[in-house]
């Protein structure tokens, strides 16, 4: 419980620092659209809360299915898949077993470097970086969705993404969140025609994790001519609220079953 309260303190002061930085951007005139910044802040906060809720859900499931710990011991989440070897890699920069070969050392290097500045908090830094990338990616996806679809549909689209099976891994100290979040931000850069920025973020996303390859979706959609069909989505079945909510319900059930299998062992 002490660990939980402590990390909550670290997390919340980091959120305060980010909020103060955004306030600085507004006051200095770097960012002029206050309403847009606040709205994106709300999307980021919603995403972060989803991540925190996942920690509680998983802690609760571990408590029930494995009976090993109380629900506030989030270290139970750090025992899934390749996360333990990744945590070792962050600390001692070893290659780590079961990682994605060339991909992990980039993220491990970033975490290790930052850990040297922040009292060797490697696990926490990895979590923060993943949260930051996922929140940033969510804001970018939301902005793109508002442009492509009706504005009312874009929050639902985000819900679909975070309800997908294994979405909880985005918020763990593994590098999936960083890679996929960066891929989403890179896609937004591509959408805004900032191709150099896209290239840099795309390379970084792919170097961090194989799932960073999602970054190729944006140019694939553009050059294949599929974007026309995406813009027509509101006219298709997804616009029907019954079908849309039914699909969301099905995704939730599927994710829950998969999480139960993963956590239950």
């Amino acid at each position, binding site marked *: 419980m*002490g660990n939980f*309260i*402590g990390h909550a303190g670290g997390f919340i*002061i980091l959120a305060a620092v980010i909020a103060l930085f955004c306030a600085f951007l507004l*006051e200095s005139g770097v960012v002029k659209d206050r309403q847009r910044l606040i709205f994106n802040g709300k999307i980021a906060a919603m995403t972060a809360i989803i991540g925190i809720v996942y920690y509680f859900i998983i802690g609760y499931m571990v408590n029930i299915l494995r009976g090993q710990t109380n629900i506030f011991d989030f270290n139970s989440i750090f025992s899934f898949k390749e996360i333990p070897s990744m945590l070792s890699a962050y600390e001692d920069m070893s290659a780590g077993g079961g990682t994605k070969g060339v991909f992990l050392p980039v993220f491990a290097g970033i975490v290790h470097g930052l850990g040297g500045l922040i009292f060797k908090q490697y696990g*926490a830094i990895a979590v923060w970086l993943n949260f930051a990338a996922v929140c940033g990616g969510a804001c970018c996806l939301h902005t793109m969705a508002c442009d492509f679809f009706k504005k009312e549909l874009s929050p639902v689209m985000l819900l679909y993404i975070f309800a997908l099976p294994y979405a909880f891994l985005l918020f763990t100290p593994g590098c999936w969140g960083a890679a996929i979040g960066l891929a989403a931000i890179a896609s937004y850069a591509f959408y805004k025609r900032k191709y150099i920025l896209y290239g840099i973020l795309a390379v970084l996303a792919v170097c961090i994790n194989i799932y960073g390859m999602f970054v190729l979706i944006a140019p694939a959609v553009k050059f294949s001519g599929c974007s026309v069909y995406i813009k027509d989505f509101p006219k298709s079945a997804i616009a029907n609220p019954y079908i849309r909510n039914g699909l969301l319900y099905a995704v939730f059930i599927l994710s829950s079953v998969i999480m139960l299998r993963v956590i239950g062992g």
Partner: protein
Amino acid sequence: MANKKNLTALMPRNKRKETIVTAIVFAVAVASRLLMFWAAYMTAKHAGMGKGLYEYLSGAGDVPHYVEIASGGYQSSGATANNIVFFPLMPMLMKLFHVIFRDYVIAGIFVSYVSFGVASCYFYKLLKLDYDDEKTAGGMLAMFMGVFGIFYISAHTESLFIMLIAMGLYYMRKNNLPAAGAAGFFAALSRTQGVLLFVPVVYEIVIRAVKEKRFDIKSLFAMLIPMGYLAYLVLNKAVTGEYFKFIEYQAAAPWYNEATWISNSIATSYDVGKNNFALSLIIYWPQIIAFFIAVAAIFAGLKNRVRISYLLFLGAYAGVTYFQSWMLSGGRYITACLPLYIVFAALDNKYIKNIILLTEGLTFMVIAVLWFRGYAIM
């Protein structure tokens, strides 16, 4: 167009009014300390306080260390060599006023009372820059009833520190950078967190430079603030031969304090408090709660459009305060963070403000009485 002669005639009267109001604020502030001191002391005495009052005030907390430094200076070896961890400004002032009072403890208490009065005057003027009378009065009341405010009446550095911070922030707002720098220099000599005044001052300089598209050469006076901390390091070098000797002493007995991340500090507070219920109520849980209140105040301040430089100081102060591996005085340190009361003043909801004031006042009295009864209020 206004008559120029009438405006000139008005100005001296406003100045007189300002002086009278400032004098009243000073008198009320000092009187409030005396009243609270008397109430807490009488309550503790009624409950059977063992020691005499002077004896108690002389031995409370860090007072003996300040007396040792004021009377004998810093030592390079021996039992009092570790006094180098205490910053020099308070002992210097105790030594100065010892000439008048012939007693270091009395001199220290005098410095505390006068500093609190001056702090209140500057804090009042600072609040008046942004808020109306009602909000200003609310902020002043919240500061007067600071939960660990009992330390403002003894020979500790709290009053001196908040005076210098209030002065620094006020002169920063008035763009009087030489004065702000000087206040920050002395604040950095009073306590570790004093150097953090550099953060809001630099922020205001940067914002002004961006908006006015020019750099004011007087901005260089902000460098006085880190110079104050540098002076303390030079003192370490002069006394012990090492610039950072104080870190070594802080990590050893009796403090066992090293720099660590905030989460470790809070987790340690919880884990230690779990094994000692009494101490958890007066030391560990108050400092855990104080941290979250400080961070919540940042968000409340952002929502209520409190000046960003104040919130930056609040965030830096809360962060640096909790970079300690074995903290015992988190509640006391957070109580001395002035921007908390600025955020309180900025709140619009009267019900929430009243609940906060009531909770604060009751908690203050409990802490004050326990302090007089010799409990480990640090």
